[in-house]
């Protein structure tokens, strides 16, 4: 058993989960800043994003060191590759939380405005996807990751519905088009976060099963016609 190597893998996992926690709370805070129309909460999102960016650099460095120094193979190689990809996804989740927080500052100017779409419901769905994707990573369970993939279409539908509602509202209340645009872009950011959660789930499936399920493909576990014969 390569103890130092195993420690490196464990540390990498821990750091990524820590970063996942930061990304998850950034989404929650961004949504809260919108709900409460509170600029101070938005400020917390900006602080959180700095920590996420620092984590991204540290995790990249650790992953590259493990690749260079330990030459991982098979499941370990897939694990490090998955971590490096999930790392990028979580960093983007942080950026999108910042986008939501910035838009919520604009919306906060209109304290009396009733937002015509259920952002809280959409946020709950998106946060659940991110949490489940991270749980699947923690527990190495591809069935949990698979469930995340199924949820993506629900969030897509919510975004489409929000689009229709907001466009109708813009026609009815053209003076507030700018604010409705902000809300529309918030739903778009939430939908993009769901896409990143999907990417994370796909990376977990790749790590655990060695299967590439991106773009509805299924590679690596299919029988290989070019495979040589053996006993």
């Amino acid at each position, binding site marked *: *058993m*390569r103890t130092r*190597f195993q420690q490196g893998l464990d540390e990498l996992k821990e750091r990524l989960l820590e970063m996942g926690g930061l990304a998850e709370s950034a989404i929650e805070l961004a949504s809260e800043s919108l709900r409460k129309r509170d600029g101070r909460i938005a400020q917390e999102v900006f602080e959180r994003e700095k920590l996420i960016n620092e984590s991204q650099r540290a995790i990249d460095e650790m992953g590259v060191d493990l690749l260079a120094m330990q*030459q*991982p*193979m*098979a*499941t*370990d*190689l*897939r694990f490090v590759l998955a971590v490096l990809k999930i790392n990028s996804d979580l960093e983007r989740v942080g950026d999108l939380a910042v986008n939501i927080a910035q838009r919520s500052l604009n919306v906060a100017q209109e304290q009396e405005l009733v937002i015509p779409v259920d952002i809280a419901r959409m946020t709950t769905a998106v946060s659940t996807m991110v949490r489940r994707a991270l749980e699947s990573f923690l527990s190495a369970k591809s069935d949990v990751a698979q469930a995340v993939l199924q949820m993506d279409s629900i969030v897509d539908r919510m975004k489409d519905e929000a689009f229709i509602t907001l466009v109708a509202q813009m026609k009815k209340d053209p003076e507030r088009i700018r604010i409705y645009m902000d809300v529309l872009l918030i739903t778009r950011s939430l939908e993009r976060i769901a896409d990143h959660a999907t990417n994370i789930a796909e990376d977990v499936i790749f790590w655990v099963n*060695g299967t590439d399920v991106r773009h509805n493909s299924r590679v*690596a*576990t299919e029988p*290989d016609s*070019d*495979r*040589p*014969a*053996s*006993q």
Partner: protein
Amino acid sequence: MGVGIEVNNLNAWFGKAQVLNEVNMKIGPNAVTAVIGPSGCGKSTYVRCLNRMHETNPDARLTGSVKVGEMEIYAPGTDAVDVRRRIGMVFQKPNPFPTMSIYDNVAAGLRLNGFTRRAELDAAVESSLRMAALWEEVRDVLKKKSGASLSGGQQQRLCIARALAVQPELLLMDEPASALDPISTGKIEELIFQLKTKYTVVIVTHNMQQAARVADYTGFFLMGKLIEFDKTEKIFTTPSDKRTEDYITGRFG
């Protein structure tokens, strides 16, 4: 051109100890196949069975069949010396004939096979040394320097040139770079990659990164059995057998 290899139900013993157990493997022509596994797994015995070198040990015996191209190498009446001429072998430790010049080292096999015409020998020596990526380094000292005067990496490439001179159909290499520094190892690996355009190559290595770098196919042996045989990228990214996974990730034992 290289030839394909078909190994069926191969079993091998040293005395009463069985070192290979029902090995089956089919390798296409012009590919590099790596054989990996822990010490004592039977990987060196396996390649020695592919050119009838196993039987040079007085206690050794085997059953099963090995077909190289159209030749069943264990068929009654097949001449072991002819088999070894058609199937070249390079060993872990470079073993040039120490007192012979570089030229004579490469020409030795040809002379044993009855080649005596100077022009033919000159052409074969040059083309073999070129294929072994050694020509430029030794062309001016071909007859002045002995094989033993070369560096370890050069000696190994000389041995490869010597094996190639008799135009084998298959080239076996038993840990050919394990005694070499990283630069010489890189040259040998590059050479193996080039050689597969003309030859079928089987290489035994305990260096998994080397197997990953040079081989198209990899077979994992454990306690005399071929546990898994597949495309190299499959073996090193998503092996099918847990024993392969445990070995290549270092969790073995």
